């Protein structure tokens, strides 16, 4: 991925030198032409086009912002409910992610999503121990949400 980005920058600079137009506009035009060139030549790369990964990162960020707002509304409901009848629980969540940055990212995402805080990551980094604020109705929904997170992270890290 880094190789493709550097190649795209180099192509943009080549375009600037070819047209002897050393401005930001010239750079942007060269960059766009470079992207088109990379798309045409994608057969020769061993990894997928970096454009897809950037798109996956943008989608993950939007998902994250949405979940952050939902989480806060849920905390607001729990805190302002007249009766404290939630059922907190610690539960184990087996993860399929392997690299450390993926697990860190997943833990941050889980901590900022509705009703869950990561308390402990097991030594072999295969299980996350999560504290849920309300076990009764959230359990199923949380599994679905985190599956979507995990899928989004895998989408980013896929080569």
């Amino acid at each position, binding site marked *: 991925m880094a190789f493709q980005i550097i190649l795209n920058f180099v192509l943009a600079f080549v375009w600037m030198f070819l047209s002897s137009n050393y401005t930001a506009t010239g750079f942007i035009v060269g960059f766009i032409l470079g992207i088109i060139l990379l798309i045409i030549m994608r057969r020769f790369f061993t990894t997928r086009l970096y454009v897809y990964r950037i798109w996956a990162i943008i989608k993950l960020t939007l998902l994250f912002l949405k979940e952050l707002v939902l989480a*806060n509304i849920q905390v607001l409901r729990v*805190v302002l409910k007249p009766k404290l009848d939630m059922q*907190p629980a610690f539960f184990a969540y087996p993860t399929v992610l392997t690299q450390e940055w993926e697990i860190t990212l997943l833990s*941050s995402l889980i901590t900022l999503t509705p009703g869950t805080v990561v308390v402990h990551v097991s030594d072999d980094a295969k299980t996350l121990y999560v504290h849920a604020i309300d076990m009764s109705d959230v359990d199923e929904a949380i599994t679905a949400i985190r599956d979507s997170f995990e899928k989004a992270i895998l989408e980013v890290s896929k080569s």
Partner: protein
Amino acid sequence: MTILANSLVIFFISIGVLFIVVTAIGLIRLPDLYTRAHAASKSATLGVMCVLIGVFFHFWLIEDHFNPRILLGILFLFITGPVGGHIMTRSSYIAGVKPWKGTVRDELGPEIDRMKKEQGIK
């Protein structure tokens, strides 16, 4: 245009203040450390972020001064907020802070016991 900008600023700052107030109420009302960590790590992060975004829009749209330091502050809060919540709950659990009696399921206890036994911590 000024009205629109002003209402944007007022919207973000009041949302932020609302979430900060909810954090404070949650810290008083909720029964144990772990449920308080929920209020502290989520609502405080989003509350301060909303206030900062409001300040950013105020200086950008009304005072005509683009300040990227506020955006960096938002980014740093975004990264460090959840990590703080995680570290505090984890160290409290290892130090032996008991969860609330209403806690229905505890799969973490055996794991921590096993870890302590392995490392020879009493």
